[in-house]
């Protein structure tokens, strides 16, 4: 049984992702055609043998709860250990810094009661396939107090530390003035032994719409795809029971990732198409991200557009953004062809 306890700090708010987080938290932003951000870190924990995972959400977490449910899809609906959802108490001036002690303190009993000796604290916006067990091994070999997981020298804001140190930091937060695990690691003046673990495989930190767009497009190359979706370490998500994707006689698809339940009658190039999306005849969808259940009518031209869930683009509509500034169509919106008035 793993000695690691998993903590996912899902309280993050990102101004740069605002268009995608009007009705949802960062953790539940759709990604890669069938996943939500949190699927990656949650699957990483499960694949690392972690059997007890606590999620600390904060804002708009209805969609997150709906997605995670009992944790069944990650095999976390357990009698011993399993999945814990810890909604926040009201705290007006609380930090969103990763591993906020004020937030963790509200549920400190969970840490005291758990039998695991170590904790991995992670965020929800780093997309990667990482083995936390390896990070723990590194942590133990070097006898670090806190190990920061990095990629190419950059912090991923994921940390491994002993549970006793975490509890101590939480309990002493008022005297120490440290506000979070991330804060401790960043502060130069203390006696803790801070180490790092370099995680090598494909990693995406998604903190803005351009980053979201860029990293989504990364998946169209074989290298990122194969590193993220390894058969031995699968990424789990909520099952939707969609049928296979149907390509019509007029379909023309190249360099695209397409999820199940989609129905393609038009042209799709270098795009990501999610579950149950419909793309009509004579439409051209290029360099776009189309989220779940969105519908693109006939004769549309879309380039560099991100369509959130349930968007309808009516027949004959042309919409263009740019690689640097993709156009975002908000969830549930309807776009029609410009009509001369």
């Amino acid at each position, binding site marked *: 049984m793993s000695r690691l306890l998993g903590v996912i700090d899902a309280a993050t708010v990102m101004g740069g992702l605002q268009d995608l987080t009007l009705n949802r938290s960062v953790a539940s932003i759709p990604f*890669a*055609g*069938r996943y939500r951000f949190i699927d990656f870190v949650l699957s990483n924990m499960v694949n690392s043998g972690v059997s007890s995972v606590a999620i600390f959400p904060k804002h708009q977490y209805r969609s997150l709860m709906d997605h995670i449910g009992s944790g*069944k899809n990650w095999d976390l609906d357990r009698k011993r250990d399993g999945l814990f959802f810890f909604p926040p108490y009201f705290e007006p001036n609380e930090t969103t810094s990763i591993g906020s002690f004020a937030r963790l303190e509200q549920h400190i009993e969970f840490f005291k009661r758990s039998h695991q000796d170590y904790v991995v604290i992670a965020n929800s916006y780093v997309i990667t396939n990482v083995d936390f067990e390896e990070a723990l091994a590194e942590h133990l070999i070097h006898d670090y107090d806190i190990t920061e997981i990095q990629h190419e020298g950059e912090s991923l804001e994921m940390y491994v530390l002993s549970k006793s140190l975490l509890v101590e930091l939480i309990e002493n937060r008022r005297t120490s003035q440290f506000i979070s695990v991330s804060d401790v690691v960043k502060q130069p003046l203390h006696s803790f032994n801070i180490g790092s673990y370099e995680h090598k495989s494909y990693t995406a930190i998604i903190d803005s719409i351009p980053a979201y767009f860029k990293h989504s497009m990364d998946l*169209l190359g074989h290298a990122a*795809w194969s590193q*993220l*979706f390894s058969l031995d370490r*699968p*990424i*789990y*998500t909520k*099952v939707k*029971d969609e*049928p*296979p*994707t*149907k*390509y*019509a*006689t*007029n*379909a*023309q*698809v*190249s*360099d*695209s*990732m*397409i*999820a*199940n*339940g989609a*129905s393609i009658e038009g042209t799709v190039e270098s795009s*990501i*198409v*999610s579950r149950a999306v419909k793309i009509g005849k004579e439409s051209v969808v290029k360099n776009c991200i189309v989220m779940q259940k969105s519908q693109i009518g006939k004769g549309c031209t879309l380039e560099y557009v991100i369509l959130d869930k349930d968007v309808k683009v009516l027949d004959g509509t042309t919409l263009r953004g740019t690689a640097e500034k993709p156009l975002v169509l908000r969830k549930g919106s309807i776009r029609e062809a410009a009509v001369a008035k």
Partner: protein
Amino acid sequence: MVKKKCVAMLLAGGQGSRLHSLTTNIAKPAVPFGGKYRIIDFTLSNCTNSGIDTVGVLTQYQPLVLNSYIGIGSAWDLDRRNGGVTVLPPYTEASGVKWYSGTANAIYQNLNYIEQYNPEYVLILSGDHIYKMDYSKMLDYHIQNDAEATISVIEVPWEEASRFGIMNTNADFEIEEFDEKPDEPKSNLASMGIYIFNWKSLKNYLELDNTNEESSHDFGKDLIPLFLNEGKRLMAYPFEGYWKDVGTVKSLWEANMDLLEENPGLNLFDHSWRIYSRNPNQPPQYLSQTSDVKDSLINEGCIIEGTVRHSVIFQGVQIKEDAIIEESVIMPDAVIGKGAIIRRAIVPEHITVPNDVTIEPEDGSGEIILVTQEMVEKLRKDVTA
């Protein structure tokens, strides 16, 4: 146990020998179908969508894959505190091992299972067919008609009627006679192998049939005639819609091709009647720059670099550059090598087709090729030779 109104018994022990190598290691209900399903998914999903939450699945032939596939039934929402799915293999008694010697015998040997729910009705199903059907409507019909048993029937073309069990009925669909594969059919209403019985009479007649040494213990051949001889009221329930027995390589291929029609008889995209299946948890499919896919169904986890026309591709399949797939069914995790050409064929699970080989039936033969491991080995030798 909480009493249940209706318990379903799903006969899934069939070998399906006319599917040849597809059923060497798995039972027919476990054969892959439609790009992501197994045949049994249709019957199990029908149960869930019809509100039937207690299903006994009778297995016998090569049950390993089927047993682990069904598991505790969570894929079909049949993991229930009361009822749910129960796999019922043959078992040993003090007197010895008793294999299921016929469809009726299989139910007879599991009377205890049904008894514990003390149902009013028992629905008998087979796991061999592809169709969507609301069993609750059939049950309403059975109750309204005050029948002892109701058998679902479908009109088949007259020229094919002699291949089926045929029900001869009066104008009100009351069954007067049952003809198993008649040479000269008097009706074209074929039994779909779906029965609803009043539990009390079914139990009586199963016990009676069991004492008859002449009986083959089959529902069609023995039980139904027994009910008729006793003058019991038997109704035919006319079903309209897509229904296909996929018992041969050709019919399995045809049923897959049926899904590719513009408005298929069987709509997999209907969210009000989803077909559930065990999820393979693979990433979305990737179609590369060199890919060219038209008129096809493709499932998750596939990497397509070649050309695909009018085909059904299951999860995790790789189709390499310059490969051409036409009018074919490629089952899970198969790999089609560079430049290989496959026409009118079924490629079973996990088979790797070597580069640059051609697999297709002779022109105009109308045949469908079932690719086998031996065939692939031979082609590989021929290519290297």
